């Protein structure tokens, strides 16, 4: 539509330079609008990055299931039966599932935060004691800082060995003391420490994790006389299998094995990371959309401001436009000029807002990188695609902003324009 001629640019610059204060004021609204978009979208992204970083400690295809009491009678059983799962059930599930790669039985000692259950000499503490299998870290990743995690030999041999969390080590051992090979007493039973781990992440979950102890499932069963009872299952969904589908199928499998009515809504509980991810993803795309929407409204207000200024400017420059038409300017050329001026002003303002907004985001990002605590807020950013979208919105709006003033300019007949003062 507009060949880019140097004189056209000169014309545009002249418009701005001739009335710099007005240009600045009209530009302010649009600049502010764009600034707001960048900041809100960037902040939403920062929140998303923070939350995702925390979630990143969890394996995205992990799933958990546990038993509760039934709510429907089935096969001669009354409703309200408390269902239990044991290690044989787990083996059967492992053998019969088509949706899972890994099924880890897990069992925990006592209730939460009970009395001190673990001692070493004079030190003691209340820790969560888990019975687990060697593959467990695949579902719940951890950093082994000393020694190793439980292995097949520990399980097969029902060895009295344990892997302790870093907090457990801090509480039971002196500073600088080497825990590997030392023993601790768990409810009176002596276990040898073979490894120390730190949990991944630094949220509340991770704090609890650091105060946990892992012992072989087989040993747990025997030492604490739980007869193979399983507290819950930690599983990995097979690649490419839909999380929701895997969850439902696994529930049905467990129900079939434990004689639970297939329609019983309560007996089996399950939770999968992927679904959680999906929910979060939905939330964040909602947030992105809202910030884009509100930013666009701010931008629209700015653009309306520019339309206003252009209308005033047209009124003041009626004479000039009349002169131009007497010199042979066709209506199209006038249209191009007015829309061009609007576009120039809007884009200039928009770019300023853009640069400032991105600059601020970068600065905040820099502060956070430098270790300023920002809670879950992490690495605020705006991607190129979003910037492009915003610029397209801006472009569309500025053409829109120019149309009304341009039509107004064309509605004035050349004679009238020439007759006007100015």
């Amino acid at each position, binding site marked *: 539509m507009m060949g880019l001629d140097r004189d056209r640019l000169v014309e545009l610059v002249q418009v701005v330079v001739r009335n710099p204060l007005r240009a600045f004021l009209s530009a302010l609204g649009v600049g502010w609008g764009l600034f707001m978009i960048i900041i809100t979208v960037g902040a939403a992204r920062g929140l998303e990055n923070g939350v995702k970083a925390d979630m990143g400690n969890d394996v995205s295809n992990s799933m958990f299931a546990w038993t509760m009491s039934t709510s429907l009678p089935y096969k001669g059983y009354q409703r309200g039966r408390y269902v239990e799962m044991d290690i044989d059930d787990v083996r059967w599930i492992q053998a019969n599932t088509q949706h899972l790669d890994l099924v880890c039985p897990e069992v925990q000692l006592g209730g939460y935060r009970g009395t001190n259950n673990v001692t070493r000499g004079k030190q003691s503490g209340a820790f969560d004691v888990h019975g687990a299998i060697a593959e467990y870290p695949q579902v719940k990743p951890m950093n082994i800082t000393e020694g190793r995690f439980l292995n097949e030999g520990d399980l097969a041999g029902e060895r009295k060995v344990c892997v302790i969390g870093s907090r457990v080590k801090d509480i039971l051992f002196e500073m600088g003391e080497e825990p590997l090979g030392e023993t601790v007493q768990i409810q009176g039973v002596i276990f040898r420490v073979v490894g120390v781990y730190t949990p991944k992440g630094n949220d509340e979950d991770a704090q609890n994790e650091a105060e946990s102890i892992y012992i072989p499932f087989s040993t747990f069963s025997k030492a604490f006389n739980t007869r193979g009872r399983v507290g819950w299952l930690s599983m990995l969904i097979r690649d490419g299998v839909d999380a929701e589908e895997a969850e439902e199928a696994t529930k049905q499998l467990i129900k079939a094995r434990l004689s639970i009515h297939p329609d019983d809504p309560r007996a089996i509980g399950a939770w999968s990371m992927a679904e959680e991810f999906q929910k979060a993803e939905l939330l964040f795309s909602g947030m992105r959309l809202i910030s884009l929407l509100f930013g666009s409204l701010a931008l629209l207000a700015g653009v309306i401001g520019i339309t206003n200024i252009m209308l005033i400017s047209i009124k003041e420059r009626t004479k*000039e436009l009349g002169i131009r038409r007497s010199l042979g300017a066709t209506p199209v050329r006038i249209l191009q000029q007015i829309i061009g001026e609007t576009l120039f002003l809007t884009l200039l303002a928009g770019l300023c807002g853009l640069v400032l907004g991105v600059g601020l985001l970068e600065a905040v990002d820099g502060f956070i990188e430098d270790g300023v605590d920002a809670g879950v807020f992490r690495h605020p950013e705006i991607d190129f695609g979003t910037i492009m979208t915003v610029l397209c919105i801006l472009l569309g709006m500025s053409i829109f902003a120019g149309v009304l003033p341009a039509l107004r300019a064309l509605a004035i007949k050349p004679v009238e324009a020439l007759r006007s003062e100015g």
Partner: protein
Amino acid sequence: MLALRGIEKSYPLAGGSLPVLKGIDLNIVQGEMVAIMGSSGSGKSTLLNVLGLLDGFDSGGYDLDGVDMAGLSEKQAARYRSQFLGFVFQSFNLISFKTALENVALPLFYQKVPRRERQKRAMEMLGKMGMDDRADHLPSELSGGQKQRVAIARALITSPRVILADEPTGALDSTTSSEVMEVLREVNASGITVIIVTHEADIAAQCDRTIRLHDGVIIEDGKSGEVVEPTARGARSQD
């Protein structure tokens, strides 16, 4: 070149309409230098605007270079203005934030002439007007006579066939006026039709032909020497 047949035009007013041109018949041939005189409000500017395609008319016919101008679109009118016509105004109508050179080059910009050539031709034209040393001046930095020279340069830059001037000397003192008239006579000598609206008898006297308007009709039309005297008297008596 220009032919008006029974042109009528009225302006809408609150309580009806005000007839301004009441049947104008006029023929102007290529190369003529014509003065339009008449008392204030007689319709001179209106007539010139109709001739210049800046304004329309209610009835009658207008042929420019043999082409009927009735019912012209804005775009077509702009084309004819650009190709055939150049305007000179009493108040110069230079664009205030553009230099003399930029003002003179502007019509070429609308003819889509390349920038380099625009600049070259505008500079040449300013040279012909003796204004090349003021090329970079803004209108506010020029005297009235200089402004009008720049305006004439701008009107001539597209090599128009007709120059339409509405009281080109109206804002100038007598010495400057005669200089500007000298320029316009040279323009006419190069074969361009010049039509000047004026109040001043001595300006009209420098034209070949004088037309006298009264209340929207042509009451006299003849060689300048013959028309000027009574008109000058008439104009004076009315001032």
